[in-house]
């Protein structure tokens, strides 16, 4: 009788995922058997789980582990991204309880779902096999579809969930088909093998099956990172989803999309750089411009931040187009700092928002600075960071990305990037205009921060300013992480 040879599993490569899975499944059980209505304790337990997973991930730095016969790798690149996901999940969990309780959709399944989504993201970052990346993507997406529609009683949330599901499923189809075609052209789904195949036959770039496969993979990932013209789902989903879930969507999955994109493109197809950097150039310019221009006219602050996140994906794509170590390191740094500033901004939006998703217009922030000065100041830091004004993390991130583009010789891309940055200042400033320069119409007494939200805000603002003033360490780590 023949036995199937089991590939070496190497649990060390997926220890953080294992820890999180165990925690998530335990939490599901706990949620069922503990009959309280207040689910905050689940949040605290999940944060503990995240902390343990984080420690495990960070402990593996500098010690790449390959597992499942080369399908998974936990190298510096994966660890950097895993930390980004874990941090974003922790911050999101901190801010979700208040909102969920307020909107009366405080189901305990929220926390395990967030954890499962995080596991999916971590698989995307450490996957070195197209199938594993796909697996992670699907795990992430299914959880996100549910999370986007979590607020069952709110019709916008239902719409968000459904839209995301339909468009996401469709784009996953593209991705999978692209992966299948690539498999057909190169004979393997393992990224290492694909790279070897491409190096051995450079003429594969003219093989239509391969080219189309590559394009379809790019399309699939572009949907995930909300690059134009595949961004149409973003505003509606971001606006309709419960605000903590919007925060999660904007930070984690975007970073996950970029991680997988970098892994596939820069690692698997580096020789074909000349072919796809032109495509990416167009994608980057389109994304930045579309995001910024449409954001200029938005009144709903969640929608405005949705378009701004499209624009930020555009800036990261600039680093992608540069296709050098600095560009990739810039993307890593940018994703980390973006997680902090965006989740922080959404935390403030959660505080100011009222039941039923009310009070989400920019004009509702009038006079906030004089009723809640600390909150307004913190929000201003995040807004300036998103706009790319020194001395914040947003500026350093943009600086690094544009420098990478200039280093590769893309002068016009950098110029378009900075002009877009200048244009974006307007809509971020508009919020500060309302907060500081208009008279308050209400007392904002419902906007008292709970301890967990206060913690999230504190961590985010400190991180934003620290990454802006002394980014050297993290930038060095990011540089190390992209030396595959």
């Amino acid at each position, binding site marked *: 009788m023949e036995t199937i040879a089991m590939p070496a599993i190497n649990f060390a490569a997926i220890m953080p995922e294992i820890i999180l899975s165990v925690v998530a499944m335990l939490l599901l059980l706990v949620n069922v058997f503990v009959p309280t209505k207040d689910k905050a304790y689940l949040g605290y337990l999940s944060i503990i789980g995240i902390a343990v997973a984080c420690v495990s991930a960070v402990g593996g730095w500098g010690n790449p582990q390959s597992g499942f016969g080369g399908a998974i790798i936990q190298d510096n690149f994966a660890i950097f991204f895993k930390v980004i996901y874990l941090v974003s999940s922790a911050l999101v969990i901190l801010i979700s309880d208040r909102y969920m309780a307020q909107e009366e959709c405080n189901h305990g399944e929220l926390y395990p779902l967030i954890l499962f989504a995080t596991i999916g993201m971590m698989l995307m970052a450490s996957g070195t096999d197209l199938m594993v990346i796909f697996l992670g993507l699907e795990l992430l997406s299914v959880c996100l579809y549910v999370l986007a529609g979590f607020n069952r009683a709110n019709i916008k949330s239902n719409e968000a969930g459904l839209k995301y599901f339909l468009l996401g499923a469709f784009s996953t189809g593209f991705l999978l088909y692209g992966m299948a075609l690539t498999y057909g052209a190169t004979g393997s789904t393992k990224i290492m093998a694909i790279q070897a195949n491409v190096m051995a036959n450079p003429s594969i770039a003219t093989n239509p099956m391969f080219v189309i496969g590559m394009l379809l993979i790019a399309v699939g990932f572009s949907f995930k990172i909300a690059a134009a013209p595949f961004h149409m789902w973003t505003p509606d989903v971001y606006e309709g989803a419960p605000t903590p879930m919007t925060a999660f969507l904007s930070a984690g999955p975007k970073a996950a999309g970029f991680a997988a994109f970098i892994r596939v493109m820069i690692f698997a197809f580096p020789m074909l750089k000349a072919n796809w950097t032109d495509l990416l150039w167009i994608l980057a310019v389109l994304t930045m411009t579309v995001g910024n221009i449409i954001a200029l006219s938005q009144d709903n602050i969640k929608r405005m931040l949705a378009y701004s996140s499209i624009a930020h994906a555009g800036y990261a794509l600039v680093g992608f187009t540069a296709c050098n170590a600095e560009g990739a390191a810039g993307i890593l740094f940018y994703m980390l700092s973006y997680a902090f500033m965006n989740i922080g901004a959404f935390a403030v939006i959660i505080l100011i928002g009222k039941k039923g998703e009310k009070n989400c217009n920019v004009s509702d922030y009038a006079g906030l*600075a004089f009723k809640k000065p600390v909150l307004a100041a913190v929000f201003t830091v995040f807004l300036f960071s998103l706009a790319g004004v020194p001395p914040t993390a947003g500026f350093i991130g943009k*600086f690094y990305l544009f420098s990478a583009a200039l280093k590769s010789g893309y002068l016009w891309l950098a110029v378009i990037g900075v002009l877009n940055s200048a244009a974006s200042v307007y809509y971020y400033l508009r919020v*500060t205009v309302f907060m500081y*320069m208009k008279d308050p119409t209400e007392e904002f007494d419902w906007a008292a921060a709970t301890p967990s939200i206060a913690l999230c805000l504190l961590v985010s603002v400190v991180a934003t300013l620290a990454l802006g003033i002394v*980014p050297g360490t993290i930038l060095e780590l990011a540089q190390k992480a992209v030396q595959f």
Partner: protein
Amino acid sequence: MSQTLPLLSILTFTPLIGAIVLLFVNKNSHGVLRTVAMAVSVLTFLASIPLFLGYNGPATATGNIGGFQFLEKMPWITAGPFQMSYHVGIDGISLWLVILTTFIMPIAILSTWTAVQEKVKEYMILLLLLEVGMIGAFISLDLFLFYIYWEVMLIPMYFIIGIFGGKNKIYAAIKFFVFTMVGSLLMLVALIVLYLKAGAGDFSLLRFYELQLDPVTQTWMFLAFALAFAIKVPMFPLHTWLPDAHTEAPTAGSVILAAVMLKMGTYGFVRFAMPLFPDATARFTPLIATLAVIGIIYASLVAMVQDDVKKLVAYSSVAHLGFVMLGLFALNQQGVTGAMLQMLNHGVSTGALFLIVGFIYERRHTRQIADFGGLAKQMPVFATIFMIVTLSSIGVPGTNGFVGEVLVLLGAFQGPMRWYAIFATSGVILSAVYMLWMFQRVMFGELNNPKNQVLKDLNAREVCIMIPLVVLVFFMGLYPRPFIDSMAPSIDRMIQQSKGRNVIAAIPAPVLPQMAAPVVMPVAAPDAVAPVAPESK
């Protein structure tokens, strides 16, 4: 004389510490807030005096004539190919600009004593943060650090205009911010390209001065830098943000904007755009000189027809800075010295003018010239001070304005810039026209308006604010020697660099050990080379 105290860093961060202290003061105790802010700014001014006493232009190490002193360098960010350091220092050019900043700040804060009664805490904090940014920008020798301070300056000013300004404050604030930011961002791209062209190393200015770039690269980079600085100066036709920002800003905001922040633009030209790109400087001199002269004449003509006093003074700023630009691009000893002096003069006289407008506004809540008339009878002390400042702004001999303008025109008159100087001279006449006519309509004539008949003259605090400025008007006008002497060697060096000959035989690039603690470059012993005597004497 070797420094062990990082004086420049202390100078930069004292206002920051003051701002942090103010955060903890109760927002209703206005007296405490104002006193603390005042104390911090006076302290900063006193801390800047050793700069002047310790600066030794001619008598420094061989080859370092007019070079940077009070140096501090500390590695800051090392990330992949990029290396930024915290590198600060001053030379003769930035010395006086720093002192101008620390000098004007207490005056500005003192002027808000009764003007701002609400949100005093925010106001004081913003003013102090502004001071940090301004001093930092003047002393930065690392281009990245300079850029950070340059942008950081915008934030407090934006809030000052937007929260405490006049009717159209939001429009003015946003215009100011976005307009300036667009220019700066293009400068950022040029900065990065400059760094990439310079090869491995840090963003230190001294290293970039050594670069020999080809003319085409120089042209584009000069344009990018010049755009950012031209918006700030402001040069015609990029000046449109200024009248709005100045008119809508509160008094202290206008004073600082005029006295210091406009100098950032011209400082940027002197320190960066001209010495870094000498060939491009030569190529664009006609363009910039033309724009400068147009600015002088156009702004003067527009100022003449203004009915708002503050707007009139704002346009006069554009005209004055046109003179500065003209002097700078004359690139000779007189021209540049005159330009530098005019920078300081403009700070003093236009700062004083805005303070005076602030006095009137506080009393009558209007700035329309038509609402005034015959005030001299009612407020004699005010009239005297106003007259002195007006004469200074026009450039009457005996006042500081005269020395600066004469030097600028003398410098511009030499060589190919002759016609520019001839046209610019008409600007002097025009400035007399608009200023004196405004003065006559406001101060002389019949005291008809009953609201004006009950106005009180300047009180003790207001006189205290104006006295240092009036003293400076005469001091700088009658005895400008200390200013000129300390600036001369640095100006010489700048001219040499901007003319395309890096003649300064090997500025010893400070080989500083990369240590964690701030390291201060010891100012070496005087050498035997005779200092270059300024020709204008």
